[in-house]
């Protein structure tokens, strides 16, 4: 073996050594549980005795797919994702554009806007649940005092309203995240580009549409990808507010119900695998779209 080959080999060994902790961690927390979950989805095991199982083929997957409650959960999740991510993006962009301008106290505002994002979701949910309470809530009190409604609205109980309430709380909590990511994107655009446009007489609206927006698109796209994946696996907000209420049930809550409430390890695992596949598919599509953007932009 030549000295060069020996050195190469040694370097490879060192590289693997450095990667080892990560590989172990990944296998331990991601690959092994995922593999177990997929494995159990082909069995009729129950949570109290997972060692007792028989293979049932794809029966569990069919059972989940034939359950209208599951599709209700999928519909809820998609509706929640599209509306909340859409609203957060628009609001995030608007606020980021405001914060991008220099003004007195910008640092304080920038820090203050992070407060909702810094709070645990359970806490935020409880706060809003209390504020939106139909009898004692601050919001209803305000509305009644202002004479906008006659009696309090049951924001968190009325079936037609509750999913919108969930979306509202989520927008309140996660808009700061969008603001920060988009603001970071805006700050990457060199000031001189705007000055060049300004001197050559390009009006404000065109500077926004043809310069700011296209150049901030990668940042907005990445922020939307993060938020979309986050929203698709949303659990805490809906669960704290309404537990397994069908009107707000998300895919994750459905899987958890099968697994924990009904102790059905096989069915629950199949539901989890469905969720995994749906989110995976959407992620692939979004990443594909983003990458397409990058080659043309």
């Amino acid at each position, binding site marked *: 073996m030549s000295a060069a080959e020996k050195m190469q080999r040694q370097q490879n060994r060192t590289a693997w050594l450095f990667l080892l902790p990560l590989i172990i961690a990944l296998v331990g927390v991601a690959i092994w549980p995922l593999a177990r979950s997929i494995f159990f989805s082909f069995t009729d095991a129950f949570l109290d005795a997972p060692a007792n199982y028989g293979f049932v083929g794809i029966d569990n997957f069919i059972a989940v797919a034939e359950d209208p409650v599951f599709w209700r959960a999928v519909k809820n999740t998609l509706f929640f994702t599209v509306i909340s991510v859409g609203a957060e993006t628009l609001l995030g962009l608007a606020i980021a554009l405001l914060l991008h301008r220099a003004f007195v106290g910008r640092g304080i505002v920038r820090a203050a806007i992070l407060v909702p994002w810094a709070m645990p979701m359970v806490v935020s949910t409880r706060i809003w649940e209390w504020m939106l309470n139909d009898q004692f809530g601050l919001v209803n009190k305000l509305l009644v005092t202002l004479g906008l409604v006659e009696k309090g609205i049951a924001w968190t109980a009325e079936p037609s309203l509750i999913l919108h309430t969930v979306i509202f709380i989520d927008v309140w909590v996660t808009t700061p995240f969008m603001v920060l990511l988009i603001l970071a994107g805006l700050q990457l655009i060199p000031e*001189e*580009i705007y000055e*060049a*446009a*300004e*001197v*050559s*007489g390009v009006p404000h609206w*065109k500077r926004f549409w043809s*310069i700011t927006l296209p150049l901030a698109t990668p940042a907005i796209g990445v922020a939307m990808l993060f938020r979309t994946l986050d929203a698709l696996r949303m659990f805490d907000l809906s669960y704290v507010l309404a537990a397994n209420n069908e009107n707000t049930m998300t895919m994750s809550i459905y899987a958890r119900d099968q697994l924990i409430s009904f102790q059905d390890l096989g069915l629950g695992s199949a539901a989890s695998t469905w969720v995994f596949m749906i989110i995976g598919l959407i992620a692939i599509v979004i990443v594909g779209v983003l990458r397409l953007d990058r080659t043309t932009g």
Partner: protein
Amino acid sequence: MASVTLKNVSKSFGAYDVIRSIDLEIEDGEFMVFVGPSGCGKSTLLRVIAGLVPVSEGDVFIGGEQVTEVPASKRGLAFVFQSYALYPHMNVSRNISFALETARLGRDEIRRRVTKVAEMLKISHLLDRRPRQLSGGQRQRVAIGRALVGEPEVFLFDEPLSNLDADLRMEMRFEIAKLHADVKTTMIYVTHDQTEAMTLADRIVILNQGRIEQVGRPRELYDRPANRFVAGFLGSPRMNFAPLDRAASSGSVLRGVGGFCHSAELAGADAPVEIGLRPEALKLVSAETKGAIRGTFERMEDLGYEYVCYVRLSETLVWTVRSTGSPLAFAEGEVVGLSWQPVSLYLFGDDGRRIDHGGALHLALGASL
């Protein structure tokens, strides 16, 4: 095309005065260069003219019209940035035509103008490329094309060549000079590079600490600098200076060099406190030469087409001598003499201003004091 006039223009950022009451008249079609050390306010002054920075005081006129309150987008100017500031997501063609899209020009007119500008700048083959696929020189051409296409009244250049390597800088310098000869539009050009200033300018404005030190044609500034700052700023290597100490009523002594007196004519109240000699005005001669001052030969740099010698006159004073021709046969550490023609001697008063001595002042080397 238009003239540009600044009247009593000042600009402060907080307590920091960047520009201090500047009056300046730039004629229609003139190529004016602002030059000065970094932080002298030259770029800010350009931005004030562009309208990118509002003035703190004073007035700006373009083509005789008051534009102090007119926003940058309505001043009819074009600005070429040091960073080029091309739109990274648009191809070259769109970069050039972007500002025309809202200018109520027909599609054909826009295309005609882009084609014309691209041909003029030899970038026709690059029209479909994006800025990041271009070299520095090509980007610079696109930036100039973008400025040209709007047919502005005045071109403003902010250190446009400082991101290019030496060869390309020379090439672009030539092109910009040619461009000015072709379009004959007023151009205002900011640089810290005195070669660019000397070669491009019809007139140069030398700025220092927010003030104008001198305005004039390049040759005028070089030959007849108004003060010590201008004298020291233009020229490379820079002018050699030596402080004078008043000694008795009959003349002065070169501090630290000694034995050097000048005639009593200039011994009055406004007597010079410093002398200046350009490196090319000095001649290396043997130490015994009459009238020459003496120093120690320290080092020679041979640049091929010329050579620069360093001669130590005192502990704190090293003068440079620049000459062409065959290298000199002096050894390091040898004592040599320096001589010059009276006409090339500059004298500076204690306020830094140059004192005109009519080119006839003979300084005689006297006995050591």
